[in-house]
Structure formats: C-alpha cells, structure tokens
C-alpha cells in the first residue's frame, strides 16, 4: 500500500460492529477513508448509524471486524496499548464524575503514557500540562474541581487532557453535544485552531451540520451504503447531503448549507425593501408558511425604512400598519 507521508490515519475496507457470542454484527459496509496531518475532520451521519462505534474502533477500544486501520502507515494491530495511546487520544460522550479531582490532575492524567511506573509528573510533564491548559484557556481554572465546572469548561478540560497526552490525532465523539450555542462556537473555534495552527489531526463526530460544513477541512459522511469523504464544499456540490435526511419535513439547501422545514405554502407575498430588516422579514414570512414572491404583486409588504418605522401590509382590500414582525405575522396567520 502506497503511503502519503502526510497521511497520518487511513482506513482500508474497515468493518466495524459488535461481536455477540459467535455472531459478528457488522454495522456498515467496509469503510475506506483517510486523514492528513493538521486536518479537522467531521464524521457525519444519522443517529445510530455507527459513528461512535467507528470512533471507538479507531481508538482501539473495539476490535475491527475486518479490514485495516493504519496510523502513520503502521497497522493498528502492531501497536501496543501504550504506543497507541501516544498516537491517538479520545474523548467520549461519557461525563467524568469524580469529586476532589482538580482540573490540573485531570489534565495530568493525559501524561499517563509518558510518565514512570508511579506516574510522577516531572518538570517536562508539568510544562506540557501548563501548555495544554493555556491553549484551552483553562489556566486560571486549574485548581478548581472538575465537578464544579460548567459543561463547556469540562469539555475544554477534556481537550486539554488529550493535548497533554501529546498525540498527533485527537478523536472526539460529539464534543459539542451538551453545550449551549456559545459553548459550541467556542469548542469549534478551539478545534479549528488546534488543527490548523497546532498541527493536530482531529476526527470528531457531530450533528451540527452547518458548523461542520463551515469549519472542517474534510467530512466523512456515513450513509447506509457507503462512506463518502471530501471537502464539505465538494459534498455540497455533489448533493451528497441530500441523502442524509430522508425526512420529508426537513429540507437541506445545498446553496447555503442550511436546513429548513418543508411546509405547504399558503400563498406568496411580495416584499419591498432591502437590508437586515428584509432578511428577517423574509424568514418570518417563510416560517408563517408563505413564499416570497419575485414579482410585484399583492399582497405586498413594505418594510420600514429610515422614514417609516412600521411594516405596511397592502392587500387588495386594505393597507395595514404594524410595529413589529410579531404583529405582522399574527395578522397574516389570522387572515388565512
């Protein structure tokens, strides 16, 4: 097998799944994919398709049921546990609940494969730990107990822990699952920085398609019958995401990478005006179940400009004024 020297991880016809008794329960068709140094890779697929199993198999927590995994060109089966722990670090969705464990101590556990028999933290280890804390901006928290942290802070601590583990590859199972929107942005930003500036290869699963598309270098899209890999934009163009959601209620717009609810249109409305207010008025109209007409017809909404503070809704029978989108939409809904 020819190896690209930058190719730090590759999957060759990998079969993943569970062994129960004598039966092998293989979840997916053989998977082939690769990751280069410094890439941020999002693993995307519907719930229960086997993303977690794939990540666990990559970390060595589960045996492959066929096919191969190569780390820097060497088969995962040839690595000892300690060697593998210096290649790939792992964060699962499991929340660590230990009281009396400080942030520093948790991050220090990342040094496990590097320390001596008793786990003594040498000066060098200490420096690596402080560096990991600094990179995740957790330095000021290091004397706090892990049990006192918020979800976002705890996740950053876990990331600091794999940084301290000093592995080229970081594998994370839904690192943003429990976080609020601000927390999600922060973690995505951190992952992006660590991969693009810090030379780490990060493979993470997520359900946040929009964020994944805008931030990752590559996407491993797991569908029922195959794995498709490529830059998010390539997958957008090829329409690969369209197969992801077989729900008739959700629509993925390949133009801007957003989702919308499919609903029957109650009619179309023309909107006159530009800018921010137009954008949000359109959104509201869509939500209420109307399409935006491209031709100047009635009914028509004139959005507020510098002179007027109100939305004007003109229909064939009347012209009404509204001082908020809320009022406007309420009135529209009543009319239909």
């Amino acid at each position, binding site marked *: 097998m020819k190896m690209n020297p930058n190719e730090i991880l590759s999957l060759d016809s990998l079969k993943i799944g569970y062994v129960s008794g004598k039966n092998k329960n293989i979840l997916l068709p053989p998977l082939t994919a690769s990751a280069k140094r410094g890439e941020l890779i999002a693993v995307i697929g519907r719930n229960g398709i086997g993303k977690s199993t794939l990540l666990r198999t990559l970390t060595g927590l589960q045996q492959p049921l066929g096919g191969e995994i190569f780390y820097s060109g060497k088969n995962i089966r040839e690595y000892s*546990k300690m060697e593998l722990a210096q290649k790939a670090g792992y964060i699962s969705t*499991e929340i660590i*609940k*230990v009281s009396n464990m*400080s942030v520093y*101590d*948790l991050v220090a556990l990342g040094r496990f494969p590097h320390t001596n028999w008793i*786990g003594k933290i040498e000066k060098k280890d200490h420096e690596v730990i402080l560096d990991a804390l600094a990179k995740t901006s957790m330095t000021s928290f290091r*004397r706090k107990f892990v*049990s006192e942290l918020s979800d976002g802070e705890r996740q950053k601590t876990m990331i600091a822990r794999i940084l301290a583990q000093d592995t080229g590859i970081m594998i994370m199972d839904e690192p943003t699952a429990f976080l609020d929107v601000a927390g999600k942005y922060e973690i995505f930003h951190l992952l992006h920085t660590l991969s693009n500036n810090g030379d780490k290869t990060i493979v993470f699963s997520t359900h946040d398609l929009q964020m994944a598309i805008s931030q990752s270098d590559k996407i491993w899209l797991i569908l029922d019958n195959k794995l498709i890999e490529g830059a998010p934009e390539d997958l957008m163009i090829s329409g690969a995401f369209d197969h992801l959601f077989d729900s008739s209620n959700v629509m993925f717009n390949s133009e801007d990478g957003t989702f919308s609810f499919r609903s029957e249109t109650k009619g179309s409305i023309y909107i006159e005006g530009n800018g921010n207010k137009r954008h949000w008025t359109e959104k509201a109209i869509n939500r209420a179940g109307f399409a935006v007409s491209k031709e100047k017809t009635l009914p028509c909404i004139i959005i507020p400009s510098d002179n007027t503070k109100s939305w004007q809704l003109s229909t064939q029978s009347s012209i009404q004024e509204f001082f908020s989108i809320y009022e406007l939409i309420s009135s529209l809904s009543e009319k239909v």
Partner: protein
Amino acid sequence: MQKEFSSDLKSRRNTRLIFSSLVLLVAIFLILDIFFGSVSIKASDVIKAIFTNADNNFEIIILKFRLPKAITALTVGVALSLSGLQMQTVFRNPMAGPYVLGISSGASLGVAFVILGFSSNITTVSLNGLGNWILVAASWIGAGAVMLLIMVISSKVKDIMTILILGIMLSSGISAIVTIMQYFSNETLLKAYVIWTMGSLGNLTASQLNVLLISVLAGVIMSLFSSKMLNALLLGENYASSIGLNVRIARAVIFTCTSILAGSVTAFCGPIGFIGIAVPHIVRILFKTSDHKILIPGTILMGGAVMLISDIISQLPGSESVLPVNAVTSLIGIPVVIWVILRNRKYSGPF
C-alpha cells in the same frame, strides 16, 4: 499569574503539613495504645518494661500483649483502609469497602472451610506455622471470589445502591452457608470458629502476627505500584484504556492486592466493619485530591491512626472493662458513611 502559582505552592505545603501531622498522630496513638489497658500501669513502668529487662508482670503485659496488639491494630487499620480505597476506585463506588460488599464475608467463608470443613483435628493451637498460611490463603481465595462476583455484577448493573444491596444479600447468603456448616460440625470445631468470629486484635500468636505483617506488607507494596493504574481508573474503563492502561491486568493486580489485604485481616482478626469504607473518604476530604500518589500514603497513615484510636477507646481508659473493637469502629465509621450517602445525593458523582 504570580498569585496563582503561589497558591500552588501553598497547597503543596499544606499537603506536607497534613502528612507530618498524620505521622505524629500515628506515633502518639501507638504510644497511647501501649500505655492504656485494662490493667493500669504507670507510665514510668511502661517505659521501664520496654527499655530494660525488669522481668516482671508489667513487662509481660507490655511486651507480650500490648505491644503486639498495638502493632496488630496499626496493621489492620492500614490493610482495611487501603483495600477500601482500592475498591472504591475500581468499582467507582463511594460505598465500596471490604465489609459492606461482602468481601469480609467471603474471607470468613474461606476460614470456615478451613476450621470447620477440612481438618477434623484442628485446634487453635495447631493453627500455627503452615496452618496459619493455609488459613490466610483460604481467606484470600474467599475474598477474591466475592470480589470477582461483585465485579461481574457491577459490569451489568451501574446503579451504586443496587450493588450495595446485592452486596448485603451476598453477605447474608454466605452467613447462611456458614451457619449450615456450623450446624453439621462438632462442638470443638464450632467453638474454635465462634471464638474466631468474635474478632479481636489481641488474640494473635506471634507466628500469626508474622503472617499478618508479611501479607499486609506485600499488599502495601503492591498498592504503591498500583497508584498510577488507580488514577487512570478514576476516569472509567474507556478513558483508562484510551490513555494506555491495560484494564484487565490493572484489575487483576488491584484485586489480588485487595484480597490479600482484606483477607489477611479477616483471617486473624475476624470481620471488622466500616474502617475500610470510611477512612478513604476522610483522607479525600482532608487532602482535597483524587491523586492516589497522595491518597495511598494518606490512607495508610489515617487507617493506622483510626484503628489505633478505636483500640484505645475500646480499652475504656481508666476502667477495667473492654469493649469489642468492632463496635467502636462501627460507631466511628457509620457517621462518615451516612455523610457520604447524603452528600452523594447532591452531587450524584461516584466520589
């Protein structure tokens, strides 16, 4: 930043201070334990008995009875507390301990097999030399078997309280088996066994104390080697494995160690409750850490201190009567256990 690092330094100084105080405490309690007993002996006579060859009754009491008993108390405290600490981490369960999970019962079943089952002409006197080792090995095997059973159960059942209840069931089941064995054994053996179950720190022969000391020393050395594994296991199996720990080997080492520690004590002193579960919690609160490099030595010292003070209290200094040491350890341990249960409802974490 400057302030932050000075606070690091302060906490390290604190840890050192607590360690030195604990060492001092153990030393003081050890001395007090020798000074107090049902026969009141003047301090000057105690010192004379230890350092000179006075060859009187006092010397016999001090050297043949009180000193071995104090050493036994220290050893028992160290062993039970350490095994409790290891079990709490491996099972990720704050309620784990040799007594509550039925490990001590398992050990007593082993002992019952030796005393009641196999040899028909065994007496406490013939339980010397090799006999002691057979007794202690049976105890290890009994303890180990229950540990494995609990491990299998806790891989299927995650709920801490359920495991606790199953542990109590297990203890009751084992007691039932022992009762049946007692029913079918003759009077002499029965008496030997019943005396054993009463549990005492003061009934050990010199050769039994030797066996206990060697076993516990082996356990302590093993536990020092296990501190890194224990730290990793705090994160749970998956994370421990992902940072490079061979979970199976780690479990085997820690189980062996725990079985030796809890089994040896139970073999010679009978089941002693609540030290194993309570002491690790006291140490965690005291040192405010989860790092076993600190918790293990801390538990060794605190375990010794608590058992020594229990023994001193059981002497009822100033009176001639003696309480069963088991009652004292329960009275010290149970409030800690209750506190942990109540606190756990709030935090819902394993420790």
